[in-house]
């Protein structure tokens, strides 16, 4: 799979031939320096962008050549997202933030389900709090709960511990492990080598290519 950009007469090979698959219940981390192609890879895997060459199949559905609107439809209900910035809506409570994806999917709020998800991330007792009343780690857990609300098959996490201290980061990775045990596929980009090597598989990118791929036992 390739993703090339054109800047004037120059062609930027952001991803220049990567080939891999991620399975249900697997956690894969993507490591690499800035400009190695991590973000481009995440964009493609998130169906936020499309490859210029090659094919990609998400949850059994080919997404090659789909328009932006068609990619949205693939994203909805299949992919969950967690980012370095939590971007919780400050005027909504924890519970309302977690329920937000349902609104965009045209689904009714489901308090029971929301509570289950909040319990899973350990924040049931904070359901009625506003984001400003939470710590950074708690806010990231809310963001994870929000991503889990639609029962995605794949969770894409872009630098999920970038704004967190070491202990909080470890607890988030512990949560990710729990989630993979429930069958969720998780792909994570990170600069933190220690966290990266917590994954089942580690891919290191350089210049848009997979430099090495290590499977951990």
């Amino acid at each position: 799979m390739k993703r090339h950009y054109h800047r004037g007469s120059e062609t930027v090979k952001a991803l220049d031939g990567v080939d891999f698959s991620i399975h249900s219940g697997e956690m894969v981390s993507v490591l690499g320096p800035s400009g190695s192609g991590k973000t481009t890879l995440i964009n493609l895997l998130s169906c936020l962008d499309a490859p210029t060459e090659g094919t990609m199949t998400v949850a059994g559905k080919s997404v090659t050549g789909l328009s932006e609107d068609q990619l949205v439809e693939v994203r909805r209900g299949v992919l969950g997202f967690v980012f370095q910035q939590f971007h919780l809506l400050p005027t909504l409570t924890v519970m309302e933030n977690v329920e937000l994806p349902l609104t965009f999917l045209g689904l009714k709020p489901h308090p029971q389900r929301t509570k289950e998800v909040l319990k899973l991330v350990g924040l049931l007792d904070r359901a009625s709090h506003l984001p400003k009343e939470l710590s950074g780690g708690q806010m990231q857990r809310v963001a994870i709960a929000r991503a889990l609300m639609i029962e995605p098959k794949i969770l894409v996490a872009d630098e999920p511990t970038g704004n967190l201290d070491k202990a909080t980061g470890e607890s988030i990775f512990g949560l990710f492990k729990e989630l993979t045990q429930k069958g969720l596929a998780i792909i994570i980009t990170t600069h933190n080598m220690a966290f990266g090597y917590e994954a089942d598989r580690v891919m290191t990118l350089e210049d848009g290519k997979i430099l090495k791929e290590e499977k951990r036992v």
Partner: protein
Amino acid sequence: MDTRLKEDHFTLFRYVSLAFKNLRRRMVRTALTISGVGLAVAMAVSLGGFVMGYQGAINRSIDMLGFQVMIMAKGCPYEAATLMLKGGTGLMYLPGDTYEKVKNDPDIESITPIFVGIALKEGTAKDSEKTFTIINGIDVPSFLSMKPWLKFQSGSGRWFSPQSRDEVVLGSEVAAFEHRQVGDSFEANITPYGNTEAVYRQFKVVGILAQAGTQDDGTVFMPLDSARSAFNRPRQLTILGLKLKQFNAATMRDFENKWLKLPEVQVVSLQQVKTTLISLVATAQTMIAAVAVIAVIVALIGVINTILMSVYERTGEIGIMKAIGARRGDIFQLIWLETLVICLFGSVIGSIFAWFGSGLVEKAIRSLADFGVSGSIVLITPGVVGYAILGSAVLGFFAGLYPAWRAASMRPVESIREGV
């Protein structure tokens, strides 16, 4: 427990709720923007109320004159137009025989001669700010045939006899202002024609009219000959009020041509008076409308600016919303609803202010320019308010397009990374 997710039939309600919560985030900014819209709408509603109210007041005032046509001395047509509505200081008089010449015209259904004089109010002759009273000398039977609705306040008297020289009937406002009752005296300083000094006169109040909502409320009535004598114009008249047997444009034209042969008179249709008075303020209305339009445009730019700022501030959030499943249309709808909420709130608040402030607006307009009509000249109806709210919704629709399009066009990952 059924844990399946179900389709929501109230998604619009959820988006509206979300829009409200987003707007609450910056309360001061939102309130200021709503105030801007409210101010513009209040101006537009007041203007609409003025246009409607003024035309209604003109029509009502002129209809309540009771006649269709006036014959009066040649002079300024604007003076003619306002003479009967608010009096006038440059009164001109018809020769006494005009009445005799005109009254037997077969086209006339009824005719009433009126003498108008201006008296200084009692005790004000030496004051620096003189106030005036309009005195109408009338022939009661023919005058009442034109204005059958004129009644006395309950138990408040009778009309004077034609021969009386010292009796008056007061309009309701004059009586209230002067604190006069039937049986009291009414004093006025009248300057007879040919005199330079006012003469103090005392009359007896024999009747007080019920409120008519017209210029008659502010008028003092006395017998025609008594008024002419007081002003030392024993054979002159100010106006002949007429009703024609058949009144339309053609009969009016014929009638006008017939009597314009008299060199000293002009024949004025009340329809012409209405048109003249309405055209007098049309320019002012156009200018106010231009100011209102500019205010609305400025308010709209304010709304667009506020929503755009809000969109840029929430770049990261919008990116997240798209990543977690919001389509472009969903983001467009959300931002567009925020714009609409601001415009609708502004229009409702502006309409309420205009509604309750219409009295002040009316006072301000009258203090700047008294158009000489009775009754309310700023009439804010549910229809005007309805149009204002509908107009605001339409403007909100257009104002929201660009910010909503900008938000909907944001690319998720870039937005999330930019919106740190």
